[in-house]
């Protein structure tokens, strides 16, 4: 599904070079639920964004479904992302002037149609957000915002969900619910990669990798 081949990402700052990723080689299987853990600055988000075609590595290759993401042109990569990848972020990143339903409809990257609208409504129903579809993000709780973001990520049935600290701004109950939802989609056949500090997603994970200083420090398979 996702293959990292000796991927490095170096940031150049005034204080010198920072290696966010340092020769990472990783394979994520289709339908896997992978948890990526590590302290702040260990390279978790960089790894996730690189896997989503959002952050070009300094060296190495990233392949998703066998396609080298960074060998594609920007337009092709954007279209690939729209078809295959859904993102969920810690800060939700909902568009403030759109309703919940409209935010969901932003996902998938293809033109609006009745079928897509019906799909969006089904997703909102599944995430217990149907009664909030005409609300603006400012009128939602943090948990509701994140569920909206998950619905948006799932529109168009991507086969890969990349979640960056999806529970970082949530209370424990909402955090648990969000991970449950992601797990449900995983059970439907979606590959899920969750980047997180804590252990909340561990019990759903097929595998956990620990990053430290841009490298995979260790790997574990719970249960």
């Amino acid at each position, binding site marked *: 599904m996702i293959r990292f081949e000796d991927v490095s990402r170096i940031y150049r700052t005034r204080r010198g070079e920072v290696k966010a990723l340092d020769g990472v080689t990783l394979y994520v299987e289709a339908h896997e639920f992978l948890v990526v853990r590590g302290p702040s600055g260990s390279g978790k988000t960089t790894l996730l964004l690189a896997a989503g075609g*959002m952050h070009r590595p300094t060296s190495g290759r990233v392949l998703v479904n066998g396609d080298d993401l960074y060998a594609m042109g920007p337009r092709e990569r*954007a279209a690939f992302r729209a078809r295959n990848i859904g*993102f969920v972020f810690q800060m939700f*990143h909902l568009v403030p002037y759109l309703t919940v339903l409209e935010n969901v409809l932003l996902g998938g990257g293809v033109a609006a149609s009745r079928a897509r609208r019906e799909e969006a409504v089904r997703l909102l129903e599944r995430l217990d957000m149907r009664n909030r579809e005409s609300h603006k993000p400012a009128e939602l709780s943090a948990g509701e915002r994140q569920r909206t973001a998950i619905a*948006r990520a799932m529109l168009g049935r991507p086969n890969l969900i990349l979640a960056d600290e999806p529970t970082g701004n949530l209370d424990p109950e909402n955090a648990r619910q969000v991970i449950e939802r992601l797990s449900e989609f995983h059970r439907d056949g979606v590959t899920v990669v969750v980047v997180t500090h804590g252990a909340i997603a561990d019990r759903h994970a097929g595998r956990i990798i620990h990053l430290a200083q841009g490298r995979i420090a260790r790997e574990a398979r719970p249960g």
Partner: protein
Amino acid sequence: MSVVRLIFAEISHRKLNFLLSLLAVATAVALFVGFFTTGEASERETTRLMRDMGFNLRIVPKETDMERFWAQGYSEQTMPEEYVQRFAAKENISYTHLLAALQKKVAWQGRQIILTGIASQEVLPGSEKKSPMKAVYGQQGAGIQPGTVYVGYEIAKALQLKKGDTIDLLGATMTVAACLAESGSDDDIRITASLRDAQRLLGEEGRINEIKALECLCRDEKVDSIDLLRTQIEEILPEAKVTQLRVIAKTRESQRIMIEKYLAFILPVTVIVCAAWIGVLAMINVRDRREEIGILRALGYGSLRIAILFLGKAALIGVVGAVLGYLAGTGLALRVGPGIFKVTASGIAPVASLLVWSLLAAPGFAALSSFIPTVTAVTQDPAITLRAE
């Protein structure tokens, strides 16, 4: 989710940014429309005022002895009246408002007067149309009716003439249409009649001894004015020659240059200020929307769609700003213009073509002003905003 829906929703969310941008475009358009709507009136006003100073070109028969011309104040030679029509067929020449005249000093009532006949219509080059002669030698009044005369100040004063009196002029009975105010020139000893009457009274039917004209304001500044006038008269009417009243010509030119320089300064400054204003607002808008741009990128929106979000909004601002600016500029011109251009006030009217031009130019102007912010939005690295916690 269509881009159009996104644009309208964003405008509704960030109303102040939209309204300020709209104000910038509408201001620029309003100034342009205001200037152009009153500009034509300004030009007409200048022409009228300059004409009231007197025609600045005098076309006389070629054989005229110029020393005697200046001593007498007119040519002793005559030419056929129809010569003036040769100018009607010409376009893009430096002569305009051509008026056939015949004048001669005659003895009347024991004094020397200048009897002048003026054609009732001016010839406008490049047009078969003729303009009614409304201003006579710097004085008020419509064209001179046959059988009537305008009497100069000194004559009227000496003979105690007033409007409506009848006089015997070289054997013909004429009615005084007006007694003119003191002019401080030889107009004060002039009696002005229609050209037909003057030709008959002077025994010069079908003849004139001068064509009065205004020098067109449209000539190239680099070309010497009198050289050009002489070259053109040689082509159009080789039987005549032209003299230019330099003081009047210079005044006209100074007036034209002053207005041109004023517009050349004020209009670009307005455009630059408004463009910078729109650009800054668009840049603020891009900064406000960094997170949104980042997530749209993550969701697979390409550079083109992101650019359309910003340029589309700018174009919309341009269209609405063009309409509002046109209405404001026209309203301003109609309200303020008549107070400035009193003589040609009635000529100030809405110019519909300016709306079309505004609708074509303003969206482009707004989009161009938003170009750098749009490039910033398109080239923004989404990872930077999406990484932020």
